[in-house]
């Protein structure tokens, strides 16, 4: 931990980590819910059954609030590239700027023009145009996720660049940059996780209404849609997308993989650790419970694959917070496994027709909704802590990327400002959403 205290970029990192983690609480639900709303609006168009329209309207209200919070907390992210990471922007702005500009031009214009129509214009637009607006918003939100992940993937595994004479980077191939394998795999993994968040939220509300004995017809729809998508998405997060992601880390960031697993010694038939506490000072894992050969198999496909431990790498390329990285990764994996089990059990009970009467299970489904948020946040911590000490892997160190002209005092000031403002925004959001939930889906009311 001592490296942390002496790290000149420390406050910049804390501020970025805080604002991005908080921000991402909202877009993941936006991206997860969007296609449910599209689905219900489509069913409403096809069948003219009022229950679909009612569900779409209700979730659009939640969606709108969530979207608004996502927009306003997203704005600081765009600014912070310039304000806090000026050296990084000078070094690689003409590359990562491409996707940031594309996000604005291709995704945000689409989303922002149509979200107003979605929230305000049901009467004015008529059902068909309103349905198209919902498709546009959903597409826009996924597109924006894609462009951001291409940007992040460049930082994880830089491709399509060349070194300019003045020592900065320049883009040599847009197609290589956009086609970055890391981006596509991370995008699939991330979008499946967003669907997990969305389906758990919908399931939880269905469980809540069922337990209270209100809105029975709606609750049944939510439980059905939520558990089906929830199971499919939970499985897809782990396999194939999570598996492919881990293999990428093994291939391009082997030192990160070693740190994620708390492995100090290289070995063939490397164990995968289920529980254990990394002890960086003594370079070992305390109290490990491990599956023999598991890591070799998961990372490289064969039980006798050679897995390199941290000791094979120079100390100054180790991620600088191995403990946090290790726990983030392991808790994420544990939660992901529990999600699959829970959703499989819920689907089985639903198939037997017992889900609505199984109060114990409904309680678990209700209380489960925060955990996908925790899992996604931990996943991003794994990704970003694992990238350290690099800002752009192998090209620019985080300690060289921050704004030299900005004093720590300035950053601490703005960090405090963000903490205070976001605390209030969080209260406001919870109040408004809880209020909508208690109002419930209303019959016949126009949004």
């Amino acid at each position, binding site marked *: 931990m001592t490296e942390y205290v002496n790290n000149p970029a420390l406050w910049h990192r804390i501020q970025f980590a805080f604002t991005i983690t908080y921000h991402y609480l909202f877009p993941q639900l936006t991206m997860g819910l969007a296609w449910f709303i599209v689905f219900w609006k489509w069913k409403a168009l096809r069948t003219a059954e009022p229950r679909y329209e009612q569900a779409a309207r209700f979730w659009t*209200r939640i969606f*709108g*609030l969530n979207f*608004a*919070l996502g*927009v*306003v*907390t997203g704005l*600081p992210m*765009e*600014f912070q*590239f*310039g*304000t806090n990471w*000026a*050296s990084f*922007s*000078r070094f690689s*702005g*003409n590359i990562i*700027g*491409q996707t*940031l*500009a*594309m*996000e*604005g*031009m*291709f995704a*945000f*214009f*689409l989303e*922002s*023009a*149509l979200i*107003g*129509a979605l*929230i*305000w*214009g049901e009467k*004015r*637009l008529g059902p068909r145009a309103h349905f198209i607006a919902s498709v*546009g918003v959903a597409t826009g939100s996924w597109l924006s996720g894609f462009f951001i992940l291409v940007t992040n993937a460049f930082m994880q595994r830089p491709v399509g660049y060349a070194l*300019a004479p003045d020592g900065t980077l*320049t*883009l*040599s191939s*847009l197609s290589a940059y956009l086609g970055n394998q890391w981006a596509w795999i991370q995008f699939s993994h991330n979008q499946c996780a967003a669907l997990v968040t969305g389906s758990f939220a919908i399931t939880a509300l269905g469980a809540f209404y069922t337990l209270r004995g209100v809105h029975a017809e709606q609750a049944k729809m939510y439980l059905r849609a939520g558990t089906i998508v929830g199971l499919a998405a939970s499985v897809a997060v782990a396999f194939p997308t999570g598996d492919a992601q881990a293999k990428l880390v093994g291939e391009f960031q082997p030192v990160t993989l070693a740190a994620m697993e708390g492995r100090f010694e290289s070995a063939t038939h490397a164990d995968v650790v289920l529980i254990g506490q990394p002890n960086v000072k003594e370079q070992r894992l305390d109290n490990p419970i491990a599956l023999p050969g598991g890591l070799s198999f998961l990372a490289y496909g064969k039980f006798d694959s050679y897995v390199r431990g941290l000791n094979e790498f120079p100390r100054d390329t180790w991620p600088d917070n191995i403990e946090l990285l290790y726990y983030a990764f392991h808790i994420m994996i544990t939660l992901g496994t529990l999600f699959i089990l829970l959703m499989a059990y819920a689907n089985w009970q639903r198939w037997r027709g017992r889900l609505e009467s199984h109060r114990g299970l409904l309680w678990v489904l209700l209380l489960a909704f925060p955990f996908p948020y925790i899992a996604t946040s931990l996943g991003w911590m794994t990704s970003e802590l694992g990238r350290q000490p690099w800002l752009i892997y192998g090209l620019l160190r985080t300690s060289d990327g921050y*704004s030299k*002209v*900005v004093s720590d005092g*300035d950053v601490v*000031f*703005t960090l405090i*400002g963000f903490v205070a*403002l976001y605390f209030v925004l969080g209260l*406001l959001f919870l109040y*408004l959403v809880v*209020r909508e939930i208690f109002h419930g889906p209303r019959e016949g009311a126009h*949004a």
Partner: protein
Amino acid sequence: MVLVWYGIVAFMLSTYIVLDGRNFGVGMVQWLVARERAERRQVVAAIGPMWLWHEVWLVSSGGVLFVAFPRLLASAFSGYYLAMFLIVWSAILRGISIEVGGHVDDGMWQSFWDAVLFLSSVLLAVLFGAALGNVIRGVPLHEDGTFHMAFFTNFKPYGDVGLLDWYTVSVALFSVLALAAHGATYLAQKTEGPVHDRAARLSRQLWTLALPAFLLVSFLTWRVRPELLGGLTGRPLAWLGILFCTGCAGALAYALHRRQEQRAFVSATVLLQGIVVTGAIALYPVMLWSTLDRGDTLTADKVSAPHQSLVTATVWWPLAAVLAVVYCSSIVRFYRGKVGPSRDGQGLY
């Protein structure tokens, strides 16, 4: 290539200023044109479904600046560090106040968010005005292309300047006045009932004040940055810009006089954008003056991205721009017509 991208940035930023400027203006004059709760909702509903894509012009301008002039973005954003975050926080509060103000049908709730809307709108108009003033006046740029600036030093626009001095403050005040006039003009053509009558009266009054204020600010600009005058007089394109702005101002005055509200609003929009673009033409190729040493001034060539990156961006940008215009114009078309005082048709705003 650099010139093309200078033009694109100028076009996008000026578009942002006129589009979102009207929302700042509406936020600022809300309490002047709306007396009752229902009228205030009507005012918010007049911008509710639209403000977001206006703000996206800012985000996208930032993205384009990032691609084309990464060094300028890095220097300016880190140099204006605290001011940037004041803008961000005000923008957050402004967005939230529009989105949640109508969610709860309660007088105190709505008054609170209307007050937040007013304060954040004023702050945004002041900050963007001061930022414009800073671009014209220049900042204490060092040899390595960075600067770090206090909020205020001795309030003089020379040498070791701060964010605020008598020049940038006057530009900020002018920006408040002009955007308030712009917002009132927008409300006059978008609303019905008593709000409309008050907005129409207010827009005539504010524009009457704005003209002499503009002349005064122009005079101050000439004192602070005489080079701009050279840029204006030496370029045929700038002459065209001046001619165009004069025409727009004439059209605005005529439309206001004849109570043609739609035309007045269009003229006001084009006029404001024309002024900003003409200023950009006069500035070129300077992007940020140095108040310390003329040699450290950041020009477009000095801060632009490598040629290859600009060419790449030129491939996809036109397509994206066409799509953006399609989305924006369809929502404008959907949203045409007037906003009445009844809650019906105001959606959740």
